[in-house]
């Protein structure tokens, strides 16, 4: 059983810790949450890159990289993602544990100081970020946006989410639009930074043998310098429409992508029954989709189901040959109907529960997986350890799975496929 502690340091600022001496490294993860809105998505996305680039003390990326490399190649990373109605900006640092340095150097005490330098003392010019920093990071963010289309699977999934959740916050691009990024000014980014300090929800997760109290106190001292009025920590479930939206996009691709979006009832089903239903449907190599759509019918190379417990939707995504799209779609719906009708074997349920128990067991042996596991529960009513989560899933009954499956309704179908000529050539 992992020791896990969580407390609210001050309004809207939470500190979680998993003390663990088994690892060669320690990790501090700072997640910052802001509402995901069209008007501010781009500025927040660029802001987190600027915060990870340099600070007053290390005034350019080269001096910062050099500092990190001198700390035994400590890894600093930033990311921008979305979780429910929120844009999640993350900054994390992981470094070699003091016990294993070659010459007895102590690295651990420096990590939170460096993170605070980056978040609270960026390199500024008056009330603006430095324009050369803004230009470099803007170029990189625009290139990241341009490169999204290269990963066909994730591109198709994000297009389906947009179609399924049109009008909802979760449909907003996590980086905003390329146009919005291009229009940002250094002054606007400064205001976004002030807003971040005053209103963001902060969730700090510490894993390894690090001094958690020192980390908490250091962070609290910094955040309390700003007048705080944190956002509400609440996610509104998706309101599904009554139609099935369809969209087909054509690109030069050899393999087509079919992504189907479904609404779910996450009020009258627990997140555990929804999760187990999703696993039985398409979450493991012994799931209905894998065994029937891929193995038995050889319709596609992959076919998997994932659910979003915060917003309440389910996605089934597959990579298929163009001529098999229709048949795959029918077979996926057929498998969901089987579940609705209770045609689920004990073996299918047990296999999904076992897979979940195994996965939860493995999380505890990975520093990164453990940090992510706890951090991801930020918006949940209760925080579970991996063991507790496995137990909660194990206690779900077949009736609950069937009930969860009966709340699944098709709402969106997104297809990415080649031009007609290419399709005929195949």
């Amino acid at each position, binding site marked *: 059983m992992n020791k896990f502690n969580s407390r609210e340091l001050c309004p809207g600022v939470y500190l979680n810790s998993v003390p663990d001496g*088994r*690892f*060669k*490294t320690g990790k501090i993860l700072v997640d910052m949450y802001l509402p995901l809105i069209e008007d501010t998505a781009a500025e927040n996305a660029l802001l987190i890159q600027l915060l990870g680039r340099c600070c007053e003390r290390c005034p350019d*990326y*080269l001096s910062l*990289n*050099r500092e*990190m*490399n*001198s700390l*035994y*190649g*400590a890894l600093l990373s930033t990311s921008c993602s979305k979780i429910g109605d929120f844009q999640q900006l993350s900054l994390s640092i*992981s*470094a*070699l544990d003091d016990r*294993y340095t*070659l010459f007895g150097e102590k690295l651990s005490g420096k990590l939170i100081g460096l993170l605070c330098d980056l978040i609270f003392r960026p390199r500024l010019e008056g009330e603006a970020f430095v324009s050369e920093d803004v230009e*470099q990071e803007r*170029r*990189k963010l625009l*290139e*990241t946006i*341009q*490169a999204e*289309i*290269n990963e*066909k699977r994730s591109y198709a999934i994000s297009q389906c989410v947009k179609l399924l959740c049109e009008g909802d916050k979760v449909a907003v691009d996590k980086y905003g639009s390329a146009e919005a990024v291009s229009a940002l000014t250094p002054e606007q980014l400064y205001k976004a930074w002030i807003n971040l300090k005053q209103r963001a929800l902060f969730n700090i997760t510490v894993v390894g043998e690090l001094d958690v109290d020192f980390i908490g106190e250091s962070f609290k001292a910094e955040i309390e310098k700003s007048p705080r009025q944190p956002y509400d920590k609440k996610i509104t479930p998706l309101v599904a429409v009554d139609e099935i939206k369809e969209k087909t996009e054509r*690109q*030069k*691709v*050899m*393999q087509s992508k079919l992504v189907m979006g479904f609404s779910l009832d996450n009020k009258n089903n627990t997140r555990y029954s929804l999760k187990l239903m999703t696993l039985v449907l398409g979450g*493991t*190599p*012994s799931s209905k989709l894998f065994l029937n759509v*891929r193995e038995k019918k*050889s319709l*596609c*190379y992959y076919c998997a189901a994932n659910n979003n417990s915060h917003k309440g939707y389910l996605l089934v995504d597959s*990579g*298929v*040959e163009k001529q098999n799209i229709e048949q795959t779609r029918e077979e996926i719906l057929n498998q969901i109907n089987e579940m609705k009708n209770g045609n689920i074997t004990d*073996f299918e349920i*047990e*296999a999904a*529960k*076992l*897979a*979940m*128990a*195994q*996965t*939860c*067991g*493995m999380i*505890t*042996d*990975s520093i990164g997986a453990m940090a992510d596991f706890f951090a991801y529960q930020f918006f949940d009513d209760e925080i579970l350890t991996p063991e507790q989560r496995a137990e909660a899933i194990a206690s779900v009954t077949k009736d609950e799975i069937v009930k969860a499956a009966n709340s699944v309704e098709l709402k969106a179908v997104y297809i990415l496929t080649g031009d007609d000529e290419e399709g005929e050539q195949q």
Partner: protein
Amino acid sequence: MKAENEIIEIANERLNEKYYKIKHSSGLTVFVFPKQDYKSSYAIYGTNFGSIDNHFIVDGQEIRVPDGIAHYLEHKLFESKDGDAFTKYAKTGANANAYTSFEKTCYLFSCSSNLEDNLKILLGFVQNPYFTDETVAKEQGIIGQEIRMYDDSPDWRVMFNLLEGMYHNHPIKIDIAGTVETIAEITPKKLYQCYNAFYTPHNMALCVVGNAQPEEVLKLVDEFVKPVPEKKIERIYPDEPIDVVKDYVEQTFPVLIPMFQLGFKADGSVKLDEKRAAGCEVALFAFASNSSPMYKQLMDEGLINESFGYEQVEMNGVNAVLFSGESQNPKRVAEVIRKHVRSALKNGIDPEEFEIAKKAVYAQYALELNSVQAIGGGLIGCEFSGRELFKCIDAISALTLDEAQDMLAFLLNPDRCTLSVVKGDD
């Protein structure tokens, strides 16, 4: 009378780890790396047989096999007379997979309980091939889909275009999965030929890492892996000129930002021992890390973004370094990298950068020791390359600047490189 197993304990005091290397009586090399207080285990069972091994002499018979057969064999081995291995793993919940690379094929699982049952499944299916005309024909569809999926991946295309530009004859330039045409030539007989040649204990290794002890692993190996006479395999690789085929290759692809790989070709006949391998890693870090002068120039000119990276490639007949990333101007990137190569060869690696690089590379290895998967992958990689994991780590701290400098000169010759670009239509 049973032959004895030969057990050696290998320890690293600085990192407080030890593992066991066992020469099993069957000829199989077995590694058991217990991780104190870890709940999970990871097992990887590999054969030194990959996509480049398409021409060989065994038992005096010269055999040429279709491109992609090692990967095809990997897929088919999961099936046996009494059902496929995934169904068996479903009963234990293990997370199982397999992969084929240029030079090896590995079967693996992670679990947090039932290690013994999982090992029985793993050893059982890998030891018992079952190929029939019908099952072999069925796989053509799924592997064809996999090949198409890779055809849509610009990262994959940019790499194989590069390898075709660098290598005249070496089979590294052939796609690991083969092509739709070559896999059509695969028959049960050819699969058995490969299996009988390469899936013998002397050509394989088993690593078990995590919550495991040597006795329990050996008991199962005794049961499943029977001694067979060692087969002499002679792998035939065509003569490979030292120069590249061409210095530039380009493909148009639906990407918004061009992707590139710049490959430096080194003498493929040189085998790297622990010291030389450490020299390569440290030298490349000092030369190309994110605090190097080269990185600074590329970034300042707006030529690269966070996707920039490098990778050292090493296998029978191949030593190379690939730089890769996204850029609006790949030709300029290549020019800048080559300029810095010339300067580093002439002026030497900066001593301060060298010290930083040693610590950072050492910490990367220490970080890998957190993960049962990374340890398993590291042990099997070292075994097939003729190196020992802890000697590799110790070689880093013992490395001298001159040794690193020699390896930089060995790896990077500015007159033997190829630039591969994938870019949009415009």
